[in-house]
C-alpha cells in the first residue's frame, strides 16, 4: 500500500490547462473521490498518477518517493478505464492474466490468482468468454479484476459506474466499497456523480476547470462548502442561491432583495456587519427550511408556485419576482399550488458567499490566519 501526494501538479495540452496547480494528499489505504463536471481534469489527473501523462509542472509522490520519471509499469498502479479497455482479442481469462504474464509470474500462480480475483468479483463463469460477449456490468468487473490481479499498491477508477444502469450502479457501488475495504488498497475514484463520490469515499476532492475547489470528508463539503461552486455542485436537489443585500432596518439585520426581506439572526448580523461589503449570495439548501402556516421567528411569506413529488418528500417551488426558491417538504405536509406559507430557514444552516464567491466563513478563517 502507499500514500499519494500531488504537489502543484499542472497539465497543459497546448493552450488548454487541464489541471491547474493541484495539491492533494491521499493517506495510505484511504479511498478518495475526484468529483467534478465533465472536462474539469479528473481523467487527466488520474492518467498523470498512473504515469501515462507526464505532468507539465509539479510533482507526484508515492510514499514520499518522487515518481515523476517512473514508468507506468513500475508504479504498481491498477487502473480501470472509463471505457474498461478490455483487449478485444483476448478471452476474459487472458485479459486478467495479462499483467501477470508480463511480470513473468509462473503459469500455475497466474492461474491461481486469476481464479482468486475472479471469485472475489463473482465472474468465474465468464473466464472463457470474449469481452465482446459481456454486458457492461460484466465488462466492468473484468476490468476491475485486471486492475486488482497484480495486487497494486494504488487503485485508480475512472468513472467505473457511468456505463451501468441505475440499479446495477447502486449494487456495484457497494461492491467496490467492500472490495476496497477488504483489500485496504489506496484508491482514487473519479466521478462526475456526487452521490457516488459522497457515498463511496472517505474524502472528496471537488474540481472545477482544472482547479481544486475543496477537499474534505463528504459532511464537510455538504455542511461547509468553501465557495459558490461547491455549494451549487454538492447537494440534490441543489442549494437555492440568491443574490441579496445586507441591511439593518431599525437596527435589525436582514437580507434584502427586490422581492423579499429575510430577517437574520443577530449572530449573522455581527459577522456580516464586519465585512466591507453589502452584497452577498445567500445559499439555503431545500432541506434546511421549514414550512409553516404561522409566522415563527425569522420567516418569509411565499406563495406555492409548483410542487414536485419526489417519493420521499415533496419539492415545493416558490417564486419571488425573478427569484425561484425550492423547499424540500416532508411527505406528511400537504402542500398545494397557490398556498401561502411561511418559509423558515434554519439560521444556523444558512450559507453566505462574498462577491468573489468565497464563503463568508472562509473569509473569517483567512482573516484569522
Amino acid at each position, binding site marked *: 500500500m502507499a500514500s499519494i501526494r500531488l504537489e502543484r501538479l499542472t497539465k497543459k495540452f497546448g493552450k488548454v490547462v487541464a489541471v491547474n496547480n493541484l495539491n492533494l494528499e491521499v493517506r495510505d489505504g484511504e479511498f478518495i473521490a475526484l468529483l467534478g463536471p465533465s472536462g474539469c481534469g479528473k481523467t487527466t489527473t488520474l492518467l498523470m498518477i498512473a*504515469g*501515462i501523462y507526464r505532468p507539465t509542472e509539479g510533482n507526484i509522490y508515492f510514499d514520499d518517493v518522487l515518481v515523476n520519471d517512473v514508468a507506468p*509499469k513500475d508504479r504498481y498502479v491498477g*487502473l480501470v478505464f472509463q*471505457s474498461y*479497455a478490455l*483487449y*478485444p482479442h483476448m478471452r476474459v481469462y487472458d485479459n486478467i492474466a495479462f499483467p501477470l504474464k508480463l511480470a513473468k509470474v509462473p503459469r500455475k500462480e497466474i492461474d491461481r490468482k486469476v481464479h482468486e480475483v475472479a471469485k472475489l468479483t463473482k465472474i468465474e463463469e465468464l473466464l472463457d468468454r470474449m469481452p*465482446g460477449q459481456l454486458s457492461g456490468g460484466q465488462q466492468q468487473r473484468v476490468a476491475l479484476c485486471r486492475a486488482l490481479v497484480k495486487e497494486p499498491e494504488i487503485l485508480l477508477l475512472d468513472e467505473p459506474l457511468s456505463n451501468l444502469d441505475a440499479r446495477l450502479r447502486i449494487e456495484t457501488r457497494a461492491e467496490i466499497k467492500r472490495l476496497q475495504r477488504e483489500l485496504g488498497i489506496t484508491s482514487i475514484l473519479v466521478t462526475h456523480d456526487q452521490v457516488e463520490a459522497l457515498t463511496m469515499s472517505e474524502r472528496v476532492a471537488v474540481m472545477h476547470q482544472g482547479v481544486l475547489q475543496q477537499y474534505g470528508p463528504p459532511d464537510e463539503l455538504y455542511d461547509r462548502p468553501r465557495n459558490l461552486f461547491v455549494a451549487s455542485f454538492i447537494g440534490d436537489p441543489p442549494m437555492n442561491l440568491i443574490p441579496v443585500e445586507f441591511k439593518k432596518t431599525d437596527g435589525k439585520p436582514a437580507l434584502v432583495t427586490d422581492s423579499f426581506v429575510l430577517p437574520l439572526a443577530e449572530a449573522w448580523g455581527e459577522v456580516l456587519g464586519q465585512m466591507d461589503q453589502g452584497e452577498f449570495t445567500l445559499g439555503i439548501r431545500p432541506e434546511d427550511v421549514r414550512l409553516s402556516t404561522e409566522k415563527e421567528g425569522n420567516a418569509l411569506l411565499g406563495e406555492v408556485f409548483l410542487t414536485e413529488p419526489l417519493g420521499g418528500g415533496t419539492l415545493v417551488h416558490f417564486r419571488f419576482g425573478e427569484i425561484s426558491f425550492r423547499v424540500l417538504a416532508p411527505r406528511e405536509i400537504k402542500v398545494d399550488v397557490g398556498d401561502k406559507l411561511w418559509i423558515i430557514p434554519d439560521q444556523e444552516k444558512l450559507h453566505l458567499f462574498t462577491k468573489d464567491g468565497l464563503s463568508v466563513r472562509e473569509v473569517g478563517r483567512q482573516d484569522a490566519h
Partner: protein
Amino acid sequence: MSSGDPKRTGRAKGYLQAFLFLLPGLILILLFFLAPVIITAVMGFTNMDYRFQWNFIGLGNFFRMADDFLIPKILINTLVYTFGTLAIFNVTFGLILALLTTSISERVGLFFRALWLLPRFTPPVVYAAIWLWILSPTRNGLLNGLRVAMGLRPIAWISQFPWGVIIITNGIIGASMGMLIFTSAIKAIPRDYLWAARVDGASWFQEVRHIVLPLIRWPLMFITAYQTLSLLTSYEYILLITQGGPFHASEVWSLYAYNKAFSAYAGTYEFGYAAALATVLVLIGTVASIAYWKIFRFREMMAQPRIEVS
C-alpha cells in the same frame, strides 16, 4: 408446377431488375477485366508473332514452356523477388515504418511518412534513373563514390547482387503502401488499449506484440495478399534498372513474358508464347489468392458480427 405461377414470374422479374442494375458494371468488368484475360488465354494457344496471325497450335506453347531451360531460373527469381520484397519491405518494413512513425511525435512522424511517400509521386523513370546513379558500376555512382573515398574498390552492384538490387529498389517504394495502411490501422486503435497495456506493465515491444499486431491483423493479411499479387505482375522497375540481367539473373516471370512479346532481343515478337506465359501467371495469381483467402480466413473478416450481446 404451372408456368403461370405468379410467385415465380414475380421472382423472375426481380432477377431481371437486379440484372439490369448490374449491367453497366458487368459490361465494364467484361470489357476491361475478363476480355483481356480471355483474349490472352486464347492467344496462348497460337503461335502468333509480329504478323498477328491466329494459328492455333494446341498446347504447343505449354510444352515449350516445360522444355524452356530458362523457366526454372525465372520461377526461382520470381519467388525470391516476390516473397523477398514482401517479407523484407512491403510488409515488415512498412510495418516498422508505421510503428516507429506512430510512436514518435505526430509532426515528426508525419514528416517521415511523407518522406517515404515521395518516390510514389516521382515518375518511375526518374526513380529508376536515381537508382542507376546510386548503383552505377563506375566510380561516379553514389555507392562506389563512397567506397572509393574510403579507399575501397568499386563494385558492379547490379551484376554482383541482382536479387538484392531488385528487392531493394522495389521494396523501398513498395513499403509505403503498407506503411500508410498500417499507420491508419494503428491510429484507429483506441488509445485506452495501449495505455491499459502500459499500466499492465508492457514495454513498447510487448505493447506491439500483444496489442497492436493482433488488432491490425486484418490489414496485415490484406497487405500481404494484395502485395503478393501486385509483385507477381510488376516488372517496370526491374525493366528500367536491370533489364532482368545480367543473363536473366534478375528476370522475373512477368518481365520474361514482356520480353518474349516486345523485346528486341529475340527479334521475333513471340506474342503467342508470351500470352501462354501470362496465362500461367494469371493461374499462379489465382491459386495464390485462393490460398490466402483460405489461410487468412478473409470470409470471417467480412462476416464477423460486431454486435455486443448483453
